[in-house]
């Protein structure tokens, strides 16, 4: 049935493909009376063997692609099919109730799934997908349906799911996936961020899509507008294809911008920099014409290991990054853990409010050894390129001063050791806590630059946990309070003659980029895939003309009005 639905477009682009549903509910089977239990049991056992063969094939393929994490998931699936205790219970049911294998298997699985309902831990609760996957696989073989797992479908998969956890994402073959349509979620949920970084169109927050869509349905989606059409008509497909052609042409136009400067129509200069998590991301930045690194998240260096990285190890990484960027500015943020990001080797007691708790600069100031090691590595790397140091989550001047004092003592230490450093390294801070935003004029006297972290600034200003799906709709980058704060931060920073960047997700929002430019921002730091588009947006708008729009929206009462108004006023391709 043809059906139009709407959600939030979180990763731009158009996809025209087929629905592949992730984590299907258990399939429906018929109950039959079976007299020959012996034969039915034998059939079940043969089926289990076939299931193992299928899984082993998948494992083999995944190993060839070096997808080790997913191999482990399928190893567990194999163990599930090999579980003699569980299948013993299924056989028992076949015998005592004289029922068919399908029915006995489904009923036994349902008993196990019942306990999942009571789990409070969301992650473990979602692990029921492993059991559902395995039971469905066996049921499919029993019923005689060909294997239809996510790896064997056509090249035009549009993944439809209620939600996608990071581990689910890992199971998807991205070379065949052309789009995502997700029932829950917001711009900043994991799947949205991943889809953008892989450049795959995605729409989230599409109510009831999981119930309405069937596997194999044709589907059209527009990751810009947030529209989704199930079983589109011929004319709808034509309209989208035209738009897609335009988009392709636009993307070719964008490539030309790679070696261009960012210059507004009325001649104002800006920098489009990139956010990265590891040195390997730099290739992507340079390929897309990034003018610097506006945010290097060092916490990735600390993950997936058993102990803190040594000074030498960090030094090597930072040196590589600044050298690869070859004189272009690189803003390196000191360790930002805590909140939802924990390290296995750093014991932080469980907190009631981790986002308001022991995290980022608070941890560094409380564990001078960790901080000292990182600052030494940073200062040593400073002489190899254009390195700048940034402190996260600063909420008071005292904290900033303490962090700067630590940096000063590290600098003195290195000088005594006769190690060459760049003493003029710029030192800045993230403005992401409302307290810091409100007294930004005072902070501006003590740092060389600001970088506005909109993700946390929105979360803290509007008191909305961005990870909570129940209130995700309240998290909004067009919120007038947030836009007013940003405007003021830029204004007071410029009074003190320091530069301001924006490094949150909002910087990559095409409707907002020209607004930030008109407010006077000096740099927008975005994911590498968005660099050219944001440059195009700025090169094709006039700050002078946009000033009027800024004045208008800063007096609008609701986020919706602002977004609609910008939709009208800001020309996107």
């Amino acid at each position, binding site marked *: 049935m043809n059906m139009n639905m709407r959600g939030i477009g979180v990763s731009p682009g158009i996809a025209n493909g087929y629905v592949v549903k992730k984590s299907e509910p258990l399939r429906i089977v018929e109950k039959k009376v079976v007299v020959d239990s012996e034969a039915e049991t034998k059939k079940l056992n043969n089926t289990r063997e076939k299931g193992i063969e299928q899984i082993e094939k998948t494992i083999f393929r995944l190993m060839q692609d070096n997808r080790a994490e997913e191999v482990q998931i399928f190893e567990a699936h194999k*163990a599930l099919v090999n579980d003699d205790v569980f299948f013993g219970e299924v056989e028992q049911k076949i015998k005592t109730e004289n029922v068919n294998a399908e029915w006995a298997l489904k009923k036994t699985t349902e008993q196990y799934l019942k306990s999942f309902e009571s789990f409070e831990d969301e992650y*473990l609760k979602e692990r029921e997908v492993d059991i559902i996957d395995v039971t469905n696989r066996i049921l499919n073989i029993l019923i005689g349906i060909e294997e239809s797992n996510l790896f064997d479908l056509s090249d035009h998969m549009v993944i439809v799911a209620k939600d996608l956890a990071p581990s689910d994402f890992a199971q998807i073959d991205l070379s065949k996936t052309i789009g995502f349509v997700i029932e829950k979620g917001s711009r900043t949920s994991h799947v949205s961020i991943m889809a953008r970084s892989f450049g795959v169109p995605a729409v989230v927050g599409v109510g009831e899509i999981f119930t309405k869509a069937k596997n194999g349905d044709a589907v059209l989606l527009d990751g810009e507008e947030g529209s989704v059409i199930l079983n589109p008509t011929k004319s709808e497909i034509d309209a989208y294809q035209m738009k897609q052609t335009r988009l392709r042409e636009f993307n070719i136009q964008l490539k030309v911008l790679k070696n261009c400067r960012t210059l507004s129509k009325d001649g104002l200069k800006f920098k489009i920099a990139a956010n990265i998590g590891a040195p390997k991301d730099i290739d992507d930045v340079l390929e897309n014409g990034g003018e610097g690194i506006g945010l290097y998240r060092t916490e990735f260096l600390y993950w997936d290991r058993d102990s803190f990285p040594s000074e030498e190890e960090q030094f090597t990484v930072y040196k590589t990054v600044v050298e690869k960027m070859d004189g272009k500015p690189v803003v390196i943020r000191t360790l930002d853990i805590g909140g939802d990001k924990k390290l296995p080797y750093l014991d932080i007691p469980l907190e009631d409010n981790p986002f308001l708790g022991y995290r980022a600069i608070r941890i560094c100031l409380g564990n001078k050894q960790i901080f000292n090691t990182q600052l030494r590595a940073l200062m040593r790397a400073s002489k190899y390129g254009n390195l700048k140091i940034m402190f996260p989550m600063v909420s008071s001047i005292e904290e900033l001063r303490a962090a700067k004092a630590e940096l000063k003592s590290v600098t003195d230490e290195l000088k005594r050791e006769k190690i060459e450093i760049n003493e003029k390294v710029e030192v800045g801070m993230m403005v992401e806590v409302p307290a810091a935003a409100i007294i930004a004029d005072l902070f501006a006297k003590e740092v060389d630059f600001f970088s506005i972290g909109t993700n946390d600034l929105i979360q803290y200003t509007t008191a909305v946990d961005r990870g909570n799906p129940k209130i995700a709709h309240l998290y909004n980058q067009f919120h007038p309070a947030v836009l007013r704060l940003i405007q003021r931060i830029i204004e007071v920073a410029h009074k003190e003659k320091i530069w301001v960047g924006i490094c949150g997700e909002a910087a990559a929002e095409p409707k907002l980029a020209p607004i930030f430019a008109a407010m006077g921002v000096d740099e927008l730091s975005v994911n590498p895939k968005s660099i050219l588009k944001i440059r195009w947006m700025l090169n094709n708008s006039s700050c002078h003309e946009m000033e009027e729009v800024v004045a208008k929206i800063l007096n609008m009462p609701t986020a919706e009005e602002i977004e609609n108004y910008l939709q009208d006023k800001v020309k996107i391709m």
Partner: protein
Amino acid sequence: MVSLGLILDNKSGLHARPANLFTKEAAKYRSSIKVFKGGKEYNAKSIFSVLSMGATQGTELTIVADGEDEELAIKALKDLFEQNFGE
């Protein structure tokens, strides 16, 4: 019969991968091995059963082995927990 009380320290709980390691290890022994969590009994040799415990970080578990190689079984499982299933 030997029993062992412990607290799960694995950060994402006993999900598919550690549950697989746990049941594979348990299956190497002839003794019957049970896990008790909140008064309920689970079969350590069944991954379906272990997954349906829903053990999160900080969960208190008691493992009870009964049979000829009970001591060895408990020791091996204890090691696995102490190494956090290699995570």
